[in-house]
């Protein structure tokens, strides 16, 4: 196995890959937290956000918050199931962690080029619900439990349109490998014109929209933040957590946002592919191109997050089952029919 044509032993490769993936979550969470949560949200509300810490536009604020969390005491309620409660944030984190394994950042920059990458990514991303249920149950707090049950209902409901939205892309590209999907978009053509390849967002705009909406719900972000509705269940399954474990939940939230944005960028926007860039240059520019596309997708997601108020529980379920899933099914049907025709 080689990264960037360097031939190194599998042990070193494993260590490097693990390190890279482990760095991606806090890094992605920091970038997203600062750029979107602190700055974009502030400006959308006609505020400035943090301006002092670190000197330049408060760039150090989030790191400072992280340091604060690490200093805090790790508190467990008396009646809590200590071991399960201690483990829960790591499970949530792990699900994010595993998604990054299959997302390619260049022709050769991918941790694990699985043939069933799409299947794998969607499977591991739904693992987080187990961590959420563990956290909610083990906290021995009724708000946490209500929140965990809401989160379960929501994540299961929105897992379906998320998967169905991706099926259209899989039909069009004819592969489930994320690398294969990127290549299909790079080398594809829209009705014979191959000037910019064939980013699936152009032909799968319905699928893209469904994916973004469902991903938003998977992240339990507003307007789908019923499970963490602070005004009624005080913060949901995280209510009894403090210190480092709370930080893990926070990192996982934004790390998962990064992962879903990366998936959407790969599936619909052509991943690392840039028209006219081939070979070694694609490896060099790949990560930057992916990052730019990720930021664009994340902008759309956070834009909706900062605009819409929270949906009621029944509205939330109705949107998934009565609207998104039927639309996704019709989308699959039409995509399949057109695939056969052309």
């Amino acid at each position: 196995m080689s990264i960037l044509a360097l031939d190194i032993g599998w042990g070193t490769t494993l260590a490097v890959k693990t390190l890279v993936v482990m760095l991606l979550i806090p890094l992605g969470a920091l970038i997203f937290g600062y750029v979107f949560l602190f700055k974009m949200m502030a400006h959308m509300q006609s505020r400035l956000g943090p301006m002092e810490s670190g000197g330049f536009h408060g760039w150090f604020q989030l790191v400072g918050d992280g340091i604060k969390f690490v200093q805090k005491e790790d508190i467990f309620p008396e009646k809590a199931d200590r071991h399960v409660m201690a483990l829960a944030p790591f499970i949530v984190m792990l699900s994010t962690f595993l998604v990054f394994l299959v997302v390619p950042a260049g022709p050769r920059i991918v941790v694990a080029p699985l043939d069933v990458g799409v299947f794998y990514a969607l499977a591991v991303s739904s693992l987080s619900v187990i961590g959420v249920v563990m956290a909610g149950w083990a906290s021995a707090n009724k708000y946490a439990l209500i929140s965990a049950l809401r989160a379960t209902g929501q994540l299961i409901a929105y897992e379906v349109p998320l998967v169905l939205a991706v099926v259209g892309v899989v039909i069009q590209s004819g592969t489930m490998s994320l690398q294969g999907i990127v290549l299909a978009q790079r080398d594809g053509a829209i009705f014979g014109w191959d000037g910019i390849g064939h980013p699936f967002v152009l032909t799968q705009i319905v699928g893209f929209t469904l994916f973004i909406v469902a991903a938003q719900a998977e992240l339990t972000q507003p307007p789908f933040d019923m499970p963490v509705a602070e005004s009624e269940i005080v913060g949901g399954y995280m209510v009894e957590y403090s210190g480092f474990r709370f930080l893990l939940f926070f990192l996982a939230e934004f790390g998962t946002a990064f992962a879903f944005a990366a998936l959407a960028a790969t599936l619909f926007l052509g991943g690392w592919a840039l028209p006219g860039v081939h070979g070694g240059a694609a490896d060099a520019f790949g990560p930057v191109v992916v990052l730019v596309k990720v930021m664009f997708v994340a902008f759309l997601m956070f834009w909706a997050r900062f605009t819409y108020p929270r949906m009621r529980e029944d509205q939330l379920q109705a949107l998934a089952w009565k609207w998104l899933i039927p639309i996704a099914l019709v989308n699959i049907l039409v995509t399949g029919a057109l695939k056969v025709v052309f």
Partner: protein
Amino acid sequence: MVMREVKGMLSGLGVTLRTMFEPAVTVQYPHESEDPPIRARGVIALKEESCTVCMLCCRSCPDWCIYIEGHKEKRPPRREGGRERTAGILDRFDIDYALCMYCGICVEVCPFDALFWSPEFEYCATDIRSLLHDKNKLGDWMTKVPEPGPLESGAQVKGKK
């Protein structure tokens, strides 16, 4: 029906996007100077020559943060052969801003227009005793009292600075 809702949601996105590109309303206070409106309640200024030591402000103050001492003096009569008049002279007029809750009742109640609001707000102190402003300091605040804005049309002109 659905289209109307979609249109509403899109215009919502438009509002947040437009706000994002407009300059924020935040004033970076220690770095930039704040510009409070002229009727902002910053500090109370005292026009000593208007004060007659009637003690109305002192008595109406809800947290008793105004301390007044004064005495009477005889003044010569206005006309030849008239009687001498008495005038109240201030010896002490202190407002303890550590107690003041900026209700403005003293300013409202003053029958002789001796107390004024000023929007000046930068008089914090490191020592709580420095928040007791004496009559000289309160008199100095008069320079910070802005000219009142134009009256609404039809308003009755009453009182003067």
